[in-house]
């Protein structure tokens, strides 16, 4: 449904994307993860045909994103990363403009009213008087009311309060259950974890890995927070961690530390056998930690999947 083949666009500043290749199948939800400046928005602009690739091609529903841009938009609902609306318009005027430009579909008008109610948007209000979150909700309505086959969403929950984030996750799950294809960039790991089937991790313009959520969950390391009785004990633990394969020091706060364990627990237990352990707690790394791990140590943790 969405396909990128060696997609490259490098700006004079050096930022951009290089040789991106990935595929999102029909009915699949794909998360595009990466920090600011890693190339997420550039990729989305390439998929939407806003910018022309220097090399490679992108296809949406079989249409070339640049050459057949208008055709791509017939099947796509898009939410930009930054909601920039005309302050003098009211919410309703803006949505009617979007509907008008999409051919004024009668069915979409009913969906619009339903969504405005669901997301509690005071659409009669001038946009200039709306908060950032309210504008974001208006943007979400404008993408979802069109009932597109494919959603391309750039940081869709940015600016939404936790309650609305939950509603958004529900909306994504509903659309998924109706067979829609979803491509979204995000910083919100809980929403990605709940909604997406696959995640692509982009680093400095290059795709570091594409993994299924199941793979990512499997690759979770076990983390242990530890408090030892003395500074000497702490030194012995750190020395042991540096020596033993499968153990790593994630956080060092003197007598308090966080250790990551890959594989069996025995080496950790052996290391701690002669140590005065005051407190030990186990916590599972969530998707965010796996993601951060990717950036710190490209070859470790989640990198066990399909590195590209």
């Amino acid at each position, binding site marked *: 449904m969405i396909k990128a083949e060696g997609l490259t666009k490098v700006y004079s500043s050096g930022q951009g994307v290089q040789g991106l290749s990935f595929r999102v199948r029909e009915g699949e939800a794909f998360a595009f993860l990466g920090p600011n400046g890693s190339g997420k928005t550039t990729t989305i*602009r390439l998929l*939407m*045909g*806003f*910018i*022309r690739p220097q090399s490679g091609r992108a296809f949406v529903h079989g249409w070339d994103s640049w050459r057949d*841009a*208008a*055709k791509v*938009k*017939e099947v*796509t609902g*898009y939410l*930009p990363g*930054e909601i*920039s*609306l*005309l302050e*003098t*318009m009211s919410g309703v*005027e803006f949505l*009617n*403009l*979007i*509907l*008008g*430009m*999409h*051919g*004024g*579909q*009668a069915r979409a008008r009913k969906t619009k009213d339903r969504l405005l109610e669901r997301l509690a948007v005071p659409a009669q209000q001038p946009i200039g008087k709306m908060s950032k979150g309210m504008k974001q909700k208006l943007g979400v309505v*404008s993408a979802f009311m069109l009932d597109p086959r494919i959603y391309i969403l750039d940081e869709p929950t940015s600016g939404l309060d936790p309650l609305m984030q939950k509603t958004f996750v529900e909306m994504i799950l509903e659309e998924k259950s109706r067979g829609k294809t979803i491509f979204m960039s995000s910083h919100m790991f809980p929403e990605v974890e709940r909604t997406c089937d696959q995640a692509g991790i982009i680093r400095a313009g290059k795709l570091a890995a594409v993994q299924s959520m199941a793979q990512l969950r499997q690759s979770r390391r076990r983390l242990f927070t530890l408090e030892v009785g003395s500074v000497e004990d702490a030194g012995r633990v750190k020395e042991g961690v540096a020596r033993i394969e499968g153990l790593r020091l994630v956080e060092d706060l003197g007598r308090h530390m966080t250790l990551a364990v890959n594989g069996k627990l025995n080496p950790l237990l052996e290391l701690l056998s002669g140590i005065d352990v005051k407190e030990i707690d186990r916590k599972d790394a969530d998707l965010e930690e796996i993601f951060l791990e990717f950036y710190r140590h490209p070859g470790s943790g989640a990198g066990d999947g399909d590195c590209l």
Partner: protein
Amino acid sequence: MREAWAGRARKEKEEEEEDEEEERAIMSKALYRAMLKLNVGKIIGYASGNALYGLLLTTVYPSIAGSPAAAEIAGSFPATVKSVFGVSDEADLSTFESYISGQFFSRIWVLVMSVYGIGTAQSLLADLLERGFLAYPLAAPLSRREIALTQSAVLLTGCATLTGVTLLGVTWGCHRQGIGISLWRYYRLGILGFSFFSALASYSLFFSAVAPGRGQALFWAAGLTLLFYGLDVVAGLSDKFRWLRRLTLFRFFRPQEILTGQSSTRDTLILLGITAGMLVLTAEGFNRRDLPV
């Protein structure tokens, strides 16, 4: 029940037909309406300002025309000063046509319309692009040419409205004051004025479509207009510089000549040709460039 169903089906069919009409169109009606609504305040402001100024000039004209001293003063201006104010050398300054051309049509009107044309052209593309709002038209199933053409139509609608309302103000003022004028010549001035301001606005829209930023677009459009204006003024100062007039767009807009029946249709056609050419270039430039919204 069956009637209600038939009624609903008919309504849906009508809506579908409306949608199809939108699909066949070469520009977006919805975008045109929204952009026009956004600019309507500005159009009303400029139009009423122009019309009121024209009305004011026609109101005071009878008292000026009746005063021999005023005609003497006007006649005593050196040719260079007349040139700066767009009044031709041979013109008899005691006529209404000379008066209204020198006081309004040749310079002030051009200045006001230039500010309107350049400003609106920037706001319709470069400004919307920089603010990110263009993401929405671009995310709709419209080609970039359709979007550029729609914005061009909004720009030309403004030019036509401003030209029409300005001339209405002047001709109504003449009617009120009993000043005898040839309406046909004012009608021709309207067409020439629209063509001239459209040409000016269309190259501004071209810069707005292809410049990397709003600042550059404004700088290029205002710079070129000032250059044209400067060449026109310098060309009028001395016979030595008269050839410079060939290089400026302002050579085609001589309101006093058209009001005294001396201008040709060729100038209007050339200006309309420049407008059409620039709008095609605008659509092509907009179609090919990266739009990082």
